[in-house]
């Protein structure tokens, strides 16, 4: 199972490092990373493999959202199927 993790907020040093460290901690394997600045906001999208996660997916979601709050960033983690179904035929 794969999920999409999005990080949005003000650009600063170490965002990628913090997020990827957290992913490693929970055994979420990063497959792809894409980052850009959209409308003055740092935007990062990660595709992660969550099949070997060492906790429940919902706990992982909560942990990431909480970490985002600590960094004043908006972090969301959603199942990739929602994006696939909406944007591909």
């Amino acid at each position, binding site marked *: 199972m794969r999920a999409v993790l999005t990080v949005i907020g003000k650009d600063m040093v170490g965002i990628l490092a913090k997020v990827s460290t957290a992913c490693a901690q929970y055994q979420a394997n990063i*497959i792809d990373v894409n980052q850009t600045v959209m409308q003055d906001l740092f935007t990062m999208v990660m595709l992660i493999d969550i099949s070997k996660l060492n906790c429940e997916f919902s706990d992982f979601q909560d942990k990431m959202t909480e970490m985002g709050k600590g960094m004043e960033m908006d972090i969301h983690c959603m199942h990739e199927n929602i994006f696939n179904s909406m944007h591909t035929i």
Partner: protein
Amino acid sequence: MLNITNIMETIRMIQDENLDIRTITMGISLLDCCDSDIDKSCEKVYDKIVTRAANLVKTGEDIEKEYGIPIINKRISVTPIAMLVASNGGDPVKYAKTLQRAAETVGVNFIGGYSALVHKGFAPGDLSLIQSIPQALAETENVCSSVNIGSTKTGINMDAVRLMGSIIRQTSELTADRQCIGAAKLVVFCNAPEDNPFMAGAFHGAGEPDCVINVGVSGPGVVRAALAKSGNCNITEIADIIKKTAFKITRMGQLVGDEASRRLGVPFGIVDLSLAPTPAIGDSVAHILEEIGLERCGGYGTTATLAMLNDAVKKGGVMASSKVGGLSGAFIPVTEDAGMINAAKLGALTIEKLEAMTAVCSVGLDMIVIPGDTPQEIISAMIADEAAIGMVNWKTTAVRVIPAIGKKEGEELNFGGLLGKGPVMHVNRYSPAKFISRGGQIPAPLQSLKN
């Protein structure tokens, strides 16, 4: 990898533009709960609902979390209760209370199906159920009721139309101390669909399987935001933008429906392609019409823009889902739509204009607050007019008006929550009493002879 712009678009739709799944509705057949003893029958009804729907709310919440998409309501629709009343002739209110108890046990916010289908006449159970509606809706919180009084195939049962004018008034009167909320849970239909997931009109038709999952999507805010970004394009291009947006919204509904059906082990029924507004700012169908270029919803041009919107939503949605059904179209419930509430207060939106709008969109005169002293025959005649539009145009129409007992034009009823609030609207008071008192049946129109 997925395109970053697409991903951000989806997230923006959910976070900023109120995109959500409006409802996952589980349809449950109660035909095997008939019994000549009503108390035994009620126990069967309770047991079946709490067994089938035991995991409905939990599953909905799990999907919501995993996919990050809000699922606002988890609901249940059941076989029209009049069919069960027919098996024992008991007091139908017992069934209403049973449904309420079951709804509380499984945690759904509405349960629909306190219904009777009388488009061609009254079968055993129908009359007693209809007469019990005011008491049933006053003594329960989450039960919804509907009565089908006409169809293109059968014409309109004018005896039922006459009766429903009085039932709507009584329902309002019995809940006058609670903003007349009873009448907000009662819909009178022509051509009622058997797989509608939306309340208050949901029931589980006799032709449906034992148990089924139907999904209703929402997203007026998303359509409006897409149009706001479109700039100065012509109406053909506007229709195209709506189509593309509706496709995306519906795909999400299909995904959630498939997933819910798999996890619950219940067949997937349909996605209802409806643009369902809520009173929240930014979630209004009226605001879409205003975004297209009307100063206020209700002015000239409203019917044309709504017809285009409704059509484009269907065209976009129909390809996105494997099974489409229910009401499928734009809803125009006045009290549930911030833009309509505003337009009605300003006098831009009148009941007559709403009636015209119902000829080109999804439902009918929906969630309209009328003066408390409106005579029952006027309510009946409103029902007859709406049913005629549905009958002739081979479409679903409905009436859900709320007589605001003790209130006059310009005052307001406030239901709170998704049902919203709205001003008491002007009603044409010339009397249709003689027409309504005649009773009988409006014969099926030529449109019915398709064979």
